């Protein structure tokens, strides 16, 4: 089966700094994939590249991004707009900033719904008309109420509120309703709950994941929190210095990490500590790349590094259920 999202060898530079250094990512239809990395690992750049939403300074020097087989980075503007409108949805970290502050929530939703209606007629002609919206009538106001209801915003006052009148959790749910209104095939969420409190965070995540499951939408969830991602997602991809260094089933990546960086990350969360046991973080900090990394970017911090780790770029190796970028993956698996 061909994947819904295929990112191959993507390299992105901002001026002299390198954000992505050959990133690969695959997401199957209906799958939830967590992309985990620390700040500067390139996960936000990867997320933005999926919708070709990179800032102007960004230069793609190599690689491809395909959504449902369409080459996102090479599409003409009209086709790109149609792709974004029909197949992609985005949710960002700061919910209030991602909504239009001058427009009532309901009107923003109507804009999306009308655009979707138009594009639907142009694009999907005949088949699939009405998609997941069947069995509802009563005009666009009912549609607005329906979409807000799907994200558990049943209070009718929400539709007439301005974004600043909403709490962070409500605003993020509105952003999700906007992103999911067009029943996208792929939802890209960039740390959507980072600014929310734990209780609200759980509610918002429940809304996103149940809605996605209902609609068959795939999720790419960008986060720095490995345990939280592993709880929700089917698969996890761990990024380090612009590459996906390990990907595989969530429980395996968290429970039996193969790449030394993933192992260190899983070990170093304060929440993972057992009473009285000292956590041992990796010394040092991630590199700031200015060009392609000569070898494995983690080598300087890696307790298992050998000579070739600094001179030879690792290629993906299959270890058990995981794809790993590590020269010594097979040996380390045996040690572990």
């Amino acid at each position, binding site marked *: 089966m061909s994947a819904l999202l295929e990112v191959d060898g993507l390299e992105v530079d*901002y*001026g002299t*700094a*390198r*954000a992505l250094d050959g990133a690969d990512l695959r997401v199957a239809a209906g799958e939830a994939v967590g992309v985990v990395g620390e*700040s*500067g690992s390139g996960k*936000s*750049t990867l997320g*933005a590249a999926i*919708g070709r*939403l*990179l*800032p102007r*300074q*960004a230069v793609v020097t190599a690689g491809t991004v395909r959504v449902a087989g369409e080459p996102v980075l090479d599409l003409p503007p009209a086709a790109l*707009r149609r792709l*974004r*409108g029909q197949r992609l949805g*985005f949710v*960002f*970290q*700061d919910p209030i*900033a*991602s*909504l*239009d502050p001058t427009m009532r929530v309901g009107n*923003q939703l109507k*804009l*999306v719904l009308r*655009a979707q209606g138009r594009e639907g007629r142009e694009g999907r002609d005949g088949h699939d008309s009405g998609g997941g919206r069947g069995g509802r009538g009563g005009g666009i106001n009912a549609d607005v109420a329906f979409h807000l209801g799907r994200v558990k915003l049943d209070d009718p006052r929400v539709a007439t509120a301005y974004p600043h009148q909403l709490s962070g959790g409500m605003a993020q749910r509105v952003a999700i309703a*906007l992103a999911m209104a067009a029943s996208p095939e792929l939802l890209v969420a*960039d740390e959507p709950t980072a600014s929310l409190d734990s209780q609200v965070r759980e509610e918002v995540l429940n809304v996103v994941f149940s809605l996605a499951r209902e609609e068959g939408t795939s999720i790419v969830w960008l986060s720095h929190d490995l345990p939280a991602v592993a709880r929700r997602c089917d698969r996890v991809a761990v990024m380090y210095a612009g590459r996906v260094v390990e990907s595989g089933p969530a429980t395996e990546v968290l429970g039996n990490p193969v790449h030394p960086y993933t192992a260190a990350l899983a070990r170093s969360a304060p929440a993972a500590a057992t009473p009285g046991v000292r956590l041992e973080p990796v010394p040092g900090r991630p590199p*700031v790349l200015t060009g392609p990394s000569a070898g494995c970017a983690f080598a300087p911090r890696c307790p298992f590094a050998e000579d070739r780790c600094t001179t030879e770029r690792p290629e993906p190796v299959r270890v058990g259920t995981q794809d790993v970028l590590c020269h010594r993956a097979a040996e380390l698996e045996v040690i572990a």
Partner: protein
Amino acid sequence: MNRTTRVKGTARAKRTASVKGTAGGRRARRLDPLSLTGLGCLLLLVLVALGSLVHAGGDPDAIVGPRLQPPGPGWWLGTDNLGRSMLPRVMEGVGTTLLLSSAAVLVTAALSAGFGILAGYRGGYLNELVMRVVELLYSFPAIVLAILVAAVAGPGQLAAVASIVLVTIPLMIRLVRAAAVAVAERDYVTAAAISGAGLPRILGRHILPNVAGTIAVQGTYALSVGISVEGGLSFLGFGVQPPQASLGVLIRQGGTYMMAAPWLIIGPGVVLVLAILSINVLGDGLRDRFEPRETRALI
């Protein structure tokens, strides 16, 4: 479409925010070519003003030829109604105008720094008082305020300086206060206060250096406002008094013979425009340098 553009903006803002730390070291230290041109122009004018002190263009009060002569050898900018050469007179005028404006702007900057920072950091009654006074000044049209001062203090250099200060100070105090309020909330100020640092240390070591950029930028703009206020005031006869030349005085005197001898106002007029323009351009450059809206480098 609306949604996509918003989305782009957020992505960019977020990325910029997350990488500020590493990018700071590479931030452009130099001004852009346009502002450098402005700076060059301003320095040239200062040089011209200094030249007038040693009568580099001739004696401004000496009668060198016939009255109201068009530009020619011996009087490169023409002669005025008394037969004095316009060149040394314009040079002296530039000097007077720049000197009065800069003196006034220094007073404005010092007062604004003092009251703006204190009001911004301490808040409370002092803040209320400063802000009400500022609003009062703000509500008067600039030129009316200047004439009022001249009427009270009597026309002359002092009236010109006082007017420039009163016209430029409201905006400057507001902006310095706003900058100080923002700085006062930062963690390093709180940490210093917790350490027991006294008011002079907090204001002098922590707040002033971090609002200095704002003061420099606003000071530059204030200088150009000052030049135009001096010009206007002296033109109306409330500022610098003849025989001393300032750009405003020269334009006023030239105005009488505008039809017969237009060079009398063209010379000082062009210099006035040039001065204001170059200072504004320089101010824009300084603003981009000191208060960058967005960090340029990424990752």
